[in-house]
């Protein structure tokens, strides 16, 4: 049984402009000890889907099921959900400066996380545990720094504090929501390395939410590609990078530095994501898709398995066979790329 299994998750928000459909029927699973990457651009629903599952999307209409360790999170009371948060699920976020309380010492904040779920732990014991954790996540001189305030740490060190806090009770799942986006590239690499180590040591599963395919390549076992609140493609990380099926994934790959269609050329995806209010029928990516035909705008394609590649599923009507797909690309995509290059 999967550690976390999200089934047909729908998240909607009432806003002044209308009903925003942030997540539209998303299903995914995380096995214990595995890392699931969720990729998507801003507004794709990648953060909202996990936040809604753990009861963070305040004011949202959430439906579907989210089975965590066999129990449906969406059916839990606030009290039951609180017992899960922090203890069984740790969370780290994008901006480690604003994610730590600016007016409390970091040690105090870690101690609070430890004692939130077990009052019997003495403050003294929790404090030495906090120092231990800070040492474990690579903060130098933890005995001294435990009494420092967040603003006295660098960005990377703050994220390490966040990780220490999230891992304080050795949760079975760590949700990392763009944890490296606000950091320098060298620090990003260190943080990813730390997460990988912790995953090995504690057997913690990770959900890595990011817009950065580079991060996915570094750390994920499986990947879910989200677009406009729907899953476009999901696969094991190698399959996604080498045999991607969906044109949106293709676009993401082409816009990556160094793995672009032509080395040195970044090919952006033209156009804007659709409005989450009153989404059109059909494939949400169709208006920006090179391969789109009339039928794509009528009905959204099902998320179907690619024959011969287990766990690889794509929501696109393109041919399922690699050779046929490649031929189509040759005829349509290559000339288009050349035109774009010449245009500049």
């Amino acid at each position, binding site marked *: 049984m999967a550690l976390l299994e999200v089934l047909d998750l729908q998240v909607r928000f009432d806003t002044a402009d209308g009903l925003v459909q942030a997540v539209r029927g998303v299903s995914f699973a995380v096995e214990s000890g595995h890392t699931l990457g969720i990729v998507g651009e801003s507004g794709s629903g990648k953060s909202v889907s996990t936040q809604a599952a753990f009861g*963070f999307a305040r004011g949202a209409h959430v439906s579907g099921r989210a089975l965590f360790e066999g129990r449906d999170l969406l059916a839990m009371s*606030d009290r039951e959900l*609180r*017992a*899960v*948060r*922090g*203890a069984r699920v*740790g*969370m780290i*976020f994008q*901006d480690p400066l*604003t*994610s*730590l*309380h*600016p*007016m*409390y010492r970091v040690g105090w904040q870690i101690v*609070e*996380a430890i004692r*939130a*779920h077990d009052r019997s732990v003495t403050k003294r014991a929790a404090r030495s545990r906090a120092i231990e954790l800070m040492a474990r996540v690579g903060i130098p001189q933890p005995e001294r720094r435990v009494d420092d*305030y967040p*603003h006295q740490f660098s960005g990377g060190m703050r994220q390490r504090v*966040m990780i220490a*806090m*999230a891992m304080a009770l050795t949760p079975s799942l760590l949700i990392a929501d763009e944890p490296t986006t606000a950091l320098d590239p060298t620090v990003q690499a260190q943080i990813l390395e730390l997460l990988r180590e912790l995953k090995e040591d504690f057997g913690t599963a990770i959900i890595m939410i990011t817009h950065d395919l580079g991060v996915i390549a570094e750390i994920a076992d499986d990947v879910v590609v989200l677009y406009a609140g729907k899953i476009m493609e999901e696969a094991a990380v190698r399959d996604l990078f080498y045999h991607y099926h969906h044109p949106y994934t293709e676009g993401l790959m082409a816009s990556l530095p160094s793995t672009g269609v032509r080395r040195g050329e970044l090919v952006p995806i033209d156009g804007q994501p659709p409005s989450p209010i009153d989404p059109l029928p059909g494939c949400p990516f169709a208006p920006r898709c090179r391969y789109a035909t009339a039928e794509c705008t009528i009905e959204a394609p099902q998320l179907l398995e690619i024959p011969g590649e287990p766990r690889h599923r794509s929501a696109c009507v393109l041919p399922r066979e690699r050779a046929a797909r490649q031929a189509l690309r040759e005829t349509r995509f290559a000339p288009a790329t050349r035109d774009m290059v010449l245009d500049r």
Partner: protein
Amino acid sequence: MLTFLARRLALGILVMWLVTVIVFIIFYIGPGSADVARALAGRDAPPSTVALIARRLLLDRPWYVQYGHFIWELLHGNLGFDYYHDEPVTTIVAQGIPITLSLIVGAAPIWLLIGVLTGMYSARHPRSFLDRSFTTFALAFYSTPTFVLGVLLILLLYYQLTIHGIALFPGSGFTPLTQNPFEWFRGLVLPWLTLALVAAATYTRLTRSSMLDVLGEDYVRTARAKGLSERRVVWRHALRAALTPILTQFGIDVGTLVGGTVITEQVFGLPGLGWTAVHSIEQQDLPVIIGIVIVASAAVVVANIVVDALYAFVDPRVRLH
């Protein structure tokens, strides 16, 4: 911390000096200043008496001698004598201070409590029925003039109660705390309510907006992600951060009120600083006016320094240099 205090103190002294200059200018060119000696001497006094009084008060000397004398005496804690009874101004001011302080000391916790509690509720349940009710009440009290609210309270809680045989509160007057604490309290309940209800509105709105901002902060999400109870998230995490602007407002309000409870004192017949100020203005008793202005300004200056120093305790990011 010490350098910070020294700098703020120096700045405060500068402000106080400016206050003395302005006060002196008003005294020097203000209405009635030209014939102070005549007024003091009385209508039928011979010119020699007037001249004598003028000489004794240094009124025949140039302005800088007068100002120098004024500052010199001020530094020695002497604010001069009132025009009518020859009483030292310091005595008159000292009589008013306990009354005004009693008013503030009682009213401040009430408005802070009402404002912060309603503001917190409103921020946690925005657009709810109670939120809208609090906002409406706050606006109503905020726009009610103090003299109307005070008189209304007297009418309802003193007059109506008393004629029905329930004499809970006296309608006016002041009993010193040292003389009878219970009577002191009884006599001040209505003035406290008057002051607090008007002031609380500001705090309701301030707390609401400050809390709403903070509740959207990432660290509040982190607190929830730790699995903390909602009560702890709100009181320990959110309120702590939302308190800074409230504290600023509170410090300034308390300082300002030392010279600013005029109407409440007037309505309830409490001879505090504001009441004394009004009466001295009516009688053009300049030394008393100047004394009260100086004491009230000093209160505002001190309150500001205290607020700034408190910042460092509330927010560790504030470095005091």
